[in-house]
């Protein structure tokens, strides 16, 4: 068991050392994430940040929270919560896909993947190591993007910062579990970036729906019922960690 | 997806819906059936045509081979 851990540490350490020296993925991804948040903020307009609920707000992630379409939502919802959460998720999703792509692209240079596959390591361990790399990259991403969204969308994290961090961390594990699996397909075929996003987005929609609903309840309605979706997030993580661990070997090919 | 719930879902319509005018709702019903049957049978006919074409193509290639 400790052998597996040290293997994961070596493999992920290698990826992170490369990333620390070149910063080729993170630099791109962080700037893209900030851009997405700014574009969404401008697109939604200052009206969204006003206290009155704005009807007809588009977008799949945010529409569930639109008070006009949802008689069940509390009327006193905090104005910034729904668009802020939606913007954060869109930024995390797009930037996350680039993270997954970037961390696999490293292996495409100079036949690195072939070397990796020759190493006396279980393919499942390769998957877990890539997953750890991706999670670290996404953590850095979140540390930059979350404050940006909080500032620009006037969305107040202070009522429950711990719950926010926990929900996001659990969601990231699931997103990275799906993303790492499909990124392996991309590394070894002509499946291009747009298609990677296409494969990851629909599969990760339960995560997006559950965690946005949880966060909106947590911050908008100030009620403790926000944690009811935790089981779904954990089930998603477990299902896709197992599926990715089993299937990584099948889709990985130099 | 139980039958009962679906019917309930629709009957719990907001007041803004046009529940009156039975001619109007009949038009919507006819539209729904036209779309459903059109797509289903359009796809079915296309599939049968595609199968026929594939059979002919395979037949030609087999002939060319022997």
């Amino acid at each position, binding site marked *: 068991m400790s052998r597996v851990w040290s293997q994961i540490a070596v493999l992920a350490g290698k990826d992170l050392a490369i990333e620390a020296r070149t910063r080729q993925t993170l630099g791109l991804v962080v700037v893209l994430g900030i851009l997405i948040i700014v574009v969404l903020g401008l697109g939604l307009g200052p009206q969204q940040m006003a206290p009155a609920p704005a009807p007809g707000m588009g977008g799949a992630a945010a529409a569930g929270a639109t008070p006009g379409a*949802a*008689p069940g939502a509390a009327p006193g919802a905090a104005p910034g919560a729904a668009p802020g959460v939606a913007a954060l998720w869109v930024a995390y999703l797009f930037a996350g896909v680039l993270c997954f792509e970037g961390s696999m692209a490293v292996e495409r240079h100079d036949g690195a993947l072939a070397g990796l596959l020759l190493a006396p390591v279980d393919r499942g361990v390769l998957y877990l190591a890539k997953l750890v790399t991706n999670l670290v990259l996404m953590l850095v991403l979140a540390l930059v993007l979350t404050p940006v969204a909080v500032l620009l969308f006037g969305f107040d994290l202070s009522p429950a910062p711990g719950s926010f961090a926990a929900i996001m961390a659990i969601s990231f594990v699931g997103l990275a579990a*799906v993303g790492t*699996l499909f990124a392996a397909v991309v590394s070894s*075929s*002509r*499946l291009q970036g747009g*298609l990677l996003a*296409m*494969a990851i987005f*629909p*599969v990760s*929609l*339960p*995560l997006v*729906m*559950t965690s946005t*609903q949880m966060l909106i309840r947590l911050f908008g309605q100030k009620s403790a019922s926000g944690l009811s979706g935790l089981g*779904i997030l954990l089930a998603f993580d477990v*299902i*896709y960690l197992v599926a990715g661990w089993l*299937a990584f070997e*099948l*889709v990985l*090919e130099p | *997806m139980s*039958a*009962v719930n679906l*019917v*309930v879902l*629709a*009957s*719990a*319509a*907001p007041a803004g*819906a*046009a*529940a009156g005018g*039975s001619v*109007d*709702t*009949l038009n*919507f*019903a006819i539209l*729904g*059936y036209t*779309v*459903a*049957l059109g*797509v*289903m049978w359009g*796809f*079915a006919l296309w*599939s049968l045509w*595609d*199968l026929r074409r*594939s059979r002919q*193509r*395979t037949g030609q*290639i087999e002939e060319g081979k022997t």
Partner: protein
Amino acid sequence: MDSTKRLFGVLFWVFTAALFAGAVVLAFAFTPDEATMGAVQKIFYVHLPVAINSFLACFVNFVASLVFLWQRRRTWDDLATAAAQVAVVLLTIVLATGMIWGRSAWGHWWTWSPRLTLSLVLWLLYVVYLVIRPSIPSAQRRAVVAAVYGAVAFLDVPLVYLSTRLMPQDVHPTEVVLAPSMRLTLGLWFLPVTLLTVGLIIVRRRALALQSQTRAVLAAAENDGPVPATIHPTGGVL
């Protein structure tokens, strides 16, 4: 032998078409209009059987994907693709009829209600399945990747269902009783729709099998030999 098979095929499609005609007559002439919604409720008789059969097609895709990963026979890949194509067609019908019904009964083409969202996400998942396939050039790789995606996509369905239930819902009364004639019509509608679904999956699978066979023969002829040049040791046996 071949001609009996063909005769059976013709009879099957004629029989299914006749059943559909009878079912439409039943829905419009036999059942009464619903009290609050009026005639638009008749969409229900086609909507529900198609929805159930679209799940059936998704399930066939899932099983075929898993069996493919286990046995690596191309016929399972063809079956999975056929099922995904039929699933997308049926889900399109579910969405379209649902939207038409919603426009009439609720006054909106679309609301983010849990069931609508579930159908939409399912539709997206299987459209993506069909879009990803042609972007992978090697037949072996395409089959493996599609099978992994098919399995992953179907595992998503219960999660999507659970997560849609977290969304704000309209308040529903809990009980409604269908009139006996309505229940009979609904039950009878399941027969032609299920026959059509099974028939479509079989026809598509057969056509896809013929097409990939043709492509393999042509590729082998081009390479002047029976072995394609791109076989890889880990590519699986096909």
